């Protein structure tokens, strides 16, 4: 028996008044942002959603997870070969962490760090997200050299916080890079950072924000909701939140049960990939425009997922 279709279900299309700003990176051919609806809902935003996927590379692997190093083999011994490996695996960006600049590690100089960044950029042609070691004063000095070395190859300098942003923001403006504004799980602080940077003279089109993607099992739900609120506010017209969002899924590896060896929890390498993937998917569904991924298997899962959700990776 065929049922006669009578009811007509109305599509719940929102009339958003805002959109996430667009930004070009690298030589100008790599684009991010521009989202006009909640993530991956083609009935809200028919344009193809294309979050950028950044593969993580560090220049000091001394306490890096061995499961990841196994995935990359000898290519992880050098940032340039590692980044090239990421390129061949389809990464859109390279997230380069210059851990060697840490005074507690090799304490390498800003110029040495800048040379690594330049080599990675030249070898891959991909835009970079460049982090220092997390020590604010040193990072500002490192980014001065990195920003200069990468001039003409528009990248993202990471990161600035509420109490220290001027020096790195100036570097970004001087060399036409974007700057990453970090805030800690707080929509108001995220907005405040963008206002601070705008008032300081950074164009809104040169700001990307990191509202802190807490990993699966370590507060993911807080980030998921903060991101959703940021997206809803941006789409509803809050201009100070209309900048592309960066989410760092690699933090999943901080969680103990992500990768600890325990037979009752199944294969550790597979589990770690799924742990990072779950973090990445929560980020994508809550608004990430740029996603930083550490594991090779996790990246493959993310790429497939973006395609399966009707996006392109």
């Amino acid at each position, binding site marked *: 028996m065929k049922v006669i279709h009578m009811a007509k279900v109305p599509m719940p299309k929102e009339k958003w008044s805002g959109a996430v700003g667009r930004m070009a990176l690298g030589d100008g051919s790599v684009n991010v942002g521009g989202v006009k609806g909640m993530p991956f809902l083609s009935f809200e935003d028919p344009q193809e959603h294309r979050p950028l996927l950044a593969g993580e590379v560090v220049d000091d692997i001394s306490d890096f997870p061995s499961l990841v190093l196994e995935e990359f083999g000898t290519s992880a011994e050098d940032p340039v070969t590692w980044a090239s490996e990421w390129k061949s695996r389809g990464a859109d960006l390279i997230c380069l962490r210059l851990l060697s600049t840490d005074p507690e590690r090799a304490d390498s100089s800003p110029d040495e760090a800048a040379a690594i960044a330049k080599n990675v950029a030249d070898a891959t042609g991909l835009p970079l997200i460049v982090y220092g070691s997390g020590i604010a004063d040193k990072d500002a000095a490192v980014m001065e050299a990195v920003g200069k070395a990468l001039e003409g190859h528009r990248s993202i300098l990471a990161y600035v916080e509420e109490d220290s942003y001027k020096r790195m923001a100036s570097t970004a403006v001087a060399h036409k890079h974007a700057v990453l504004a970090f805030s800690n799980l707080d929509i108001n602080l995220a907005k405040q950072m963008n206002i601070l940077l705008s008032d300081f003279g950074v164009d809104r089109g040169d700001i990307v924000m990191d509202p802190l993607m807490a990993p*699966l099992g370590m507060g993911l739900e807080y980030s998921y909701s903060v991101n959703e609120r940021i997206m809803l506010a941006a789409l509803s017209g809050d201009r100070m939140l209309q900048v592309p969002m960066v989410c760092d899924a690699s933090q999943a590896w901080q969680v103990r*049960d992500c990768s600890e060896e325990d037979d009752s929890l199944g294969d550790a390498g597979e589990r770690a990939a799924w742990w990072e993937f779950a973090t990445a998917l929560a980020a994508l569904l809550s608004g990430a425009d740029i996603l930083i991924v550490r594991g090779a298997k996790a990246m493959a899962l993310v790429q497939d997922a973006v395609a399966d959700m009707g996006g392109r990776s």
Partner: protein
Amino acid sequence: MPTAIEFFKFLPKTNCGECGHPTCLAFAMQLANQKVSIDACPYVDSGAKEKLEESSAPPVKGFSVGLGDNSLRMGDETVLYRHERKFVNPTAFAVTVTDAMSSDEMAETVSRHSSMTFERVGMEFRLDMFALRDETGDAESYTDAAKNLVGLTDWPIVLISGRPDVLRPAAELLKDRRPLLYSADDSNIKEMAAIASGLGLPLALRDDTFDGMAALVEEARKAGVEDLILDLGSGSMKQVLENNTVARKVSLRRTFKGLGYPLMNCVGGGEGAVKKAMVAVMKYGSLVVFDSIEPQQALPLMTLRQNIYTDPQVPIQVKEDLYPISDPDAASPVLFTTNFSLTYFTVRADIEKSRQPVWLQVVDTEGLSVLTAYAAGKFGPEHVTAALEASGALDRSEGPIVTPGMVAKLSGKLEEALGRKVMVGPMESSSLPKFLKGLKE
């Protein structure tokens, strides 16, 4: 829910007091708070009552499957985004067995998935249901398999067959276990709805289109079946995401009433199944049916479900206890922090990073973070002392006690109360590795 003013419009406004409230407005406010029933007012006419009942019906209807302690509730959801209130009934995960399996094979599958349990931050995670799929098309074989399955598990069951003649005898046999029947589509809706209605069981409807699904819902309701769950397709992550979102949105916004039911997704097996299941957990799925699942995929998936279904207004708390990290001994330092999960996770991860053995004492601060708990008077020397004594921390280690840097003020009073050396730790948890390495030297 209608507001107090909307209720007030339908009341007689005579303030007669017969409802037990002094004024009609007071009664209306109690109605809006769902504290009383409209029936308490003898003067509201039946037409008005009907209107009010319709607008106060939950936007997503709920129902239960299974019996007793193992019963599961689905639906009752009220928000699109979890920050608005919370997601109510967590996604249930079912694993499939078939009537083509030998009884040994079925027993092995049930036992393997039943014992796939994990403990995380004091909670036990596990799968929830078994689904029995009709593979043979033979009613006798299917009924035998159903009989076999109920002997193997107390969990709620989904009976899967597109054939009413196969499903009916098994449904009759299992009806006291309150299984979910899957599924009715536009080829069998009349017969399936008759079975569900006759046995009083919940029924799953299956259609890829919204209009087609709305028509199935109408048919089922006409037959008297109200406990419905909708499967709008799970061919891709996109289909799960968009179809679940549309159905939930039109229901919560009340722009369309016929899809206000829990949603389910049959995701199959392999990597694709886990990905679709993760979308369903975040996007409104009440039930996900797997062919099978591996522990290395199940733990991240169940952790995701636990995270997403956390009440955003109630901070997750870690149990007050003494947590050993990296095999501490009698000389290892004793650090303490609050029981707010984010604080605990951060501190724990930073201690692990240092690779130094540490005793970590969690103090019950009702889920507040360090500074907030201190300001609220829940993280004073007396609380810390009591926690350290209760856990036996002071007997297990003679090492230094370390306060979080944010509450350095505690150190003097603590030293007095404990008669032990108390040190001040770093302001930020991220400096712990450096601090702990320094402590060792």
